[in-house]
């Protein structure tokens, strides 16, 4: 019955199975330990070390990084702004993705496949490429502003500020949201909608009373994914924000590469992980509430 039975004869099974399994899993355990577990644990420890500036580290362990980060007005503002911006991006992503997901759920056959490929392809295209595309649209000399000028309207500042970051990230996160929504749309049975209609519900009522509640699990998953990715995204805020939009992820990079204050960068990293954990808890609460 079991897969293991075909590897070796009985009797010699246990010891040789263990040996073989170790051999097969050895490389991945080595890579995982060397480039994931060890660095992450090291990062956690580093958040309790003193920075001597210029990359130097003090010998003693200290809570200073944590306490100063959580007291300093700049960092509190940074954390709050990061969370608020990410929440805003999440909601915009949901609003932009929901019609596409609902349409894809209804569409059929070859057309659906083509549209799905169009949704997935951006996911496989480098974030640098897509961000670059947004610069072309949002720049002072870009598509929107040139169109506005041609229409005789005033140009708007869309790049190197929060507006640009929010627009760009919303688009970048849409494929994730759409896939998550689609995964959660499984419970959406057209017959239930039909049943509601025969009971006298208008299309608008069917949407709010039937479709939206039934798709809540997908919405929750998509929002979790978008929020988490928004908080941790770096390339897009950095390029579209032009160094003028301060978010947790960009600050981590600056502290690590520019200021060379690794303990502070490590502390900020851990704060991101804490925000992740909180989002995950909220998600499971929400999921239990809607199911």
């Amino acid at each position, binding site marked *: *019955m*079991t897969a293991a*039975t*075909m590897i*070796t*004869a*009985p*009797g*010699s*099974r246990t010891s040789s199975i263990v040996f073989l399994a170790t051999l097969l899993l050895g490389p991945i355990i080595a890579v995982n330990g060397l480039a994931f577990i060890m660095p992450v644990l090291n990062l956690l420890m580093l958040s309790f070390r003193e920075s001597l500036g210029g990359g130097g580290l003090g010998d003693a362990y200290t809570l200073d990084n944590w306490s100063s980060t959580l007291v300093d007005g700049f960092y509190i503002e940074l954390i709050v702004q990061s969370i608020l911006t990410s929440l805003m991006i999440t909601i915009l992503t949901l609003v932009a993705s929901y019609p596409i997901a609902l349409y894809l759920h209804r569409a059929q056959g070859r057309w659906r496949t083509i549209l799905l490929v169009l949704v997935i392809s951006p996911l496989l295209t480098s974030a640098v490429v897509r961000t670059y595309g947004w610069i072309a649209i949002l720049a002072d000399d870009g598509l929107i502003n040139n169109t506005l000028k041609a229409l005789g309207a005033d140009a708007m500042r869309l790049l190197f500020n929060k507006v640009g970051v929010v627009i760009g990230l919303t688009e970048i996160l849409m494929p994730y949201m759409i896939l998550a929504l689609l995964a959660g749309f499984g419970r959406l049975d057209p017959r239930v909608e039909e049943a509601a209609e025969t009971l006298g519900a208008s299309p608008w009522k069917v949407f709010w009373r039937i479709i939206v509640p039934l798709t809540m699990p997908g919405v929750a998953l998509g929002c979790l994914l978008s929020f988490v990715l928004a908080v941790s995204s770096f390339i897009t805020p950095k390029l579209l924000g032009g160094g003028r939009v301060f978010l947790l992820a960009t600050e981590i990079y600056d502290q690590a590469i520019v200021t060379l204050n690794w303990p502070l960068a490590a502390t900020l990293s851990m704060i991101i992980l804490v925000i992740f954990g909180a989002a995950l808890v909220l998600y499971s609460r929400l999921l239990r509430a809607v199911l």
Partner: protein
Amino acid sequence: MQPGFLSIRSLTKRYETMVAVDDLNLEIAKGELVAFLGPSGCGKSTSLRMIAGLAPATSGTISIGGKDVTQLAPYRRDIGLVFQSYALFPHMSVLKNVMFGLEMRKVPAAEAERRAREAIAMVQLEGREDRRPAQLSGGQQQRVALARALVIQPSILLFDEPLSNLDAKLRDEMRSEIRSIQKRLGITSIFVTHDQVEALSMCDKVAVLNGGRLEQLGTPNDLYERPATAFVASFVGRTNRLSGVAEGDCISVGGKALRAPGASKGKVELMVRPHRMVMTAAGETMPDFGSEPINSIDGEIRDVYYAGDILHYEIDAGGQVMSVERTTSGGETPVSPGSAVNLTWRVADTLVFGAAQ
């Protein structure tokens, strides 16, 4: 017991929470076709998988041709296995599928191909050598699976419910085909099935399993006429049951004395095959049993069903329901419900078992 070509001693398979096969002892002679028959979960498939080496035995031994194979991996056992779901290699042609086992045995390519083509011809699939399994029907796929198992001339051929995915007509065809090929090649074979007709009509011997235990190993005739246990009697063929109390060869059923071969004592169950019971209604002549001792009880017809070739009567005999059949001849009037009838059968056709707890 004479050691057979396939010898199974105290074979046991225990899972964490249950015993799938419990102390199985079985000797199978060379060239025999033996069925493992039983309801689902009786341990027949698990036993087969242990013989094949696909499931390790918890304890006990399996030997083939005098050689203990209990600890051998499946690929060292020299067996052929035909699976219920065919298990063909989807990425290989029919010919490559059949050649695979020969290749593993390092048979030179030219000879392997010749033998594979022979085997494919044997299962009547000439001309389909280059097809992929997905391009064949279920019956054809099972023929490929059969050819693939046969071509390596295994010392034992195992069938794991090979016909249960096929429709009724195809199943009948395959039964006689498998039987004739098996006899021609003389390969010792085990045929796992839950279908008693399949087991009785195809196999030399039938091993009836129930709850992981062997109930009886015997010829189809043994099983039907001389079932060793109440389970075998009721699982193989149909039976009418009567409960009574035995005292020697005299059994009291609802105040009426019946006789049965052999002596027993205490609460017993009598079983009689429905078609061995003769029903006589008022005004009909009793059939002549000659000098044979007979049993007889009275009853009342409760219901009658018309099934084309037979009329099926349900009779209430002192609170115990019997069924009896009469073949139709056309034009007769069925005996109507409520009529008093008499049921008669030979004492020799009476089976006695200790009452189930």
